[in-house]
């Protein structure tokens, strides 16, 4: 069986329903059904879809899957938490929540941090409210599948005007992952008016065999809320990583996103931001690196629905060997979204003549009073800079790394959790070494 087999998905869904329907609220079973029907209607991605035309779909769809559960005997071996994590940490192993590995502070009643399954028990009406925001109507097949199947994830709900100063760390760990297994996590972040939080999502594993993780995070920022969201995709090269982020923003809210993608044989990141009320702004940035035959995709889409919103995107990539990168930045400015400001920049360095990048801005501007800039560059390391460093005694490999580190430094410097920044940079430099 592989991903491209719709019959397989039907059977899997029927099996899922027979096991779970009694154990979950009926409204959730209903949502799952709607999501699954939506998946059937959309079908699996294919080359003719604009959104998937640069992807090597065989890499994604011809993966085998088995549904026997994600972990093998002898699990729980890579569970040292990374050194930057000092508090507020939720750990998911093979897609399942592990309370014993998590570090949970006692929060006041204004701050709710739960796993998905806990949230269904403790705050069911909020969960229902969140699920009925209709993201199951998405056009992305894998997002629909995620909603149909996901049973775990994290839920963060922060009350009005409450500011959470310490970051919440979410670790998604693959440990002794079963060959070809499939895991889903579905998360929600809801910041009420004026609330503030920082969340880090970090994916890693000890896997040597293929598996897939589909992660879907829905984020809602009400008026004046401020959310900073970090992502580090650092799973092994055998894995497949699908990351979906949907953000919807209220008046004068601020969303900052930083994503770093290093791992996975195939990874696709879909970041969708709805600037739904005036004065909202989003600041999206990322760093990626591919080598060997990795394929990596950042698809961002920003909708300027209301006037006076700002969006800013800055992504940088380093592509080596036969690695393939895709950056697609879609921005839509609605007719009445006057005084919108949007900028986009994507810079790439190719380290090999077999490496490839498809970078494409996709701007749809239907308002006339709009400030808009975009740009993309693809280049190589400067021979002059390399020679200058070497002429000072710095070896060629070290000099290359110097320059690559310099290339990413302006984005690295924007990460304001120092320990996480250092950890990420270290991982990135390690990936560049081998």
């Amino acid at each position, binding site marked *: 069986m592989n991903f491209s087999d719709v019959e397989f998905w039907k059977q899997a869904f029927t099996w899922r329903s027979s096991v779970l329907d009694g154990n979950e609220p009926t409204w959730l079973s209903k949502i799952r059904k709607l999501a699954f029907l939506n998946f059937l209607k959309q079908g699996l991605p294919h080359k003719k879809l604009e959104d998937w035309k640069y992807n090597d779909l065989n890499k994604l769809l011809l993966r085998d899957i088995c549904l026997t559960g994600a972990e093998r005997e002898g699990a729980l071996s890579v569970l040292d938490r990374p050194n930057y994590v000092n508090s507020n940490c939720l750990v998911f192993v093979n897609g399942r929540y592990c309370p014993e590995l998590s570090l949970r502070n006692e929060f006041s009643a204004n701050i709710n941090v739960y796993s998905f399954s806990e949230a269904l028990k403790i705050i069911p009406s909020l969960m229902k409210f969140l699920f009925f925001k209709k993201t199951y109507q998405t056009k992305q097949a894998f997002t629909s599948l995620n909603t149909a199947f996901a049973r775990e994830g994290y839920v963060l709900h922060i009350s009005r005007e409450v500011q959470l100063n310490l970051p919440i760390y979410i670790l998604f760990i693959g440990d002794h992952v079963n060959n070809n297994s499939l895991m889903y996590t579905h998360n929600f972040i809801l910041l009420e008016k004026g609330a503030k939080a920082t969340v880090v999502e970090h994916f890693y594993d000890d896997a040597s065999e293929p598996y897939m993780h589909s992660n879907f995070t829905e984020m809602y920022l009400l008026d004046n809320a401020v959310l900073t969201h970090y992502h580090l995709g650092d799973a092994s090269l055998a894995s497949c990583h699908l990351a979906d982020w949907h953000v919807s923003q209220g008046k004068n809210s601020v969303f900052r996103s930083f994503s770093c993608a290093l791992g996975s044989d195939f990874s696709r990141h879909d970041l969708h931001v709805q600037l739904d009320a005036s004065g909202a702004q989003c600041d999206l940035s990322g760093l990626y690196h591919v080598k060997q035959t990795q394929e990596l995709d950042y698809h961002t889409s920003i909708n300027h629905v209301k006037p006076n919103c700002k969006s800013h995107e800055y992504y940088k990539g380093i592509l080596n060997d036969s690695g393939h990168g895709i950056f697609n930045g879609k921005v839509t400015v609605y007719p009445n979204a006057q005084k919108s400001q949007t900028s986009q920049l994507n810079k790439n360095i190719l380290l090999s003549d077999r490496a490839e990048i498809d970078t494409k801005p996709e701007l749809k501007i239907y308002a006339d009073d709009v400030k808009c800039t975009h740009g993309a560059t693809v280049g190589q390391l400067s021979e002059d800079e390399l020679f200058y460093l070497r002429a000072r*005694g*710095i070896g060629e490999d070290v000099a290359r790394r*110097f*320059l690559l580190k310099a290339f990413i430094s302006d984005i690295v410097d924007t990460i304001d959790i120092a320990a996480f920044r250092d950890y990420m940079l270290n991982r990135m430099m390690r990936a560049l070494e081998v």
Partner: protein
Amino acid sequence: MLEIKNLHASVQKKSILKGVNLTIKPGEIHVLMGPNGSGKTTLGKVLAGSPNYIVSKGQVLFNHHDLLMLSPEERARRGLFLGFQYPVEISGVSNIYFLKAALNILRAQQGLKALDALDFKALIQKKLEILEMDESFLYRSINEGFSGGEKKRNEILQLLIFNPTLAVLDETDSGLDIDSLKHVAEGINQFHHKDNGLLLITHYQRLLNYVRPDYVHLFHDGKIKKSGDYRLVSHLEKLGYEKALTRELA
């Protein structure tokens, strides 16, 4: 310490160096003068090992080793320094990080232990004073947004920190106002002693008011046309390259 014998080199199939012969002994200061485009910078780059140039003929011995066999970094580690005519801007790497990393590589080569941040600061402080460079230059990206004169001073700062045995300074005196020129000259004099060698590539006599050369060479069309002592400089200055060369060739 340096012996260049019949050196020929080309760039992009264009032949530039056409038989350079030059010997520099410890303690000597040599000056290379010549018109634009004659190949002076090419000589410096070839000595430093730039991959842009192809050596087609000739030999270079540096402390009795075959220099041309070595990678650029290996040449630097063995004590060769090139002060660039156009120092490269490298954004995103702070000057101090670069200087310290490079110095520690050179020290490791000499079997010395690495300097920590404090020791390094102490070492560099004195050199900054000689050059009247503000400390803030250390924390900016390498040469990024530096004025022409600041870039040249940054080259001399490196000369003082790395303390090579042979330095080739390519037009380090060009584009400097009189104060900067004095600081650069002061740096060069601080650097020079009886055991190291200097090859100064320059257009002007100005620098030579502060630094007294042992030999002056007139470079033209890819080779040395005439050599003499410092008096050759005033001769050149009076006649200009063209006349001096015509006389020479006649």
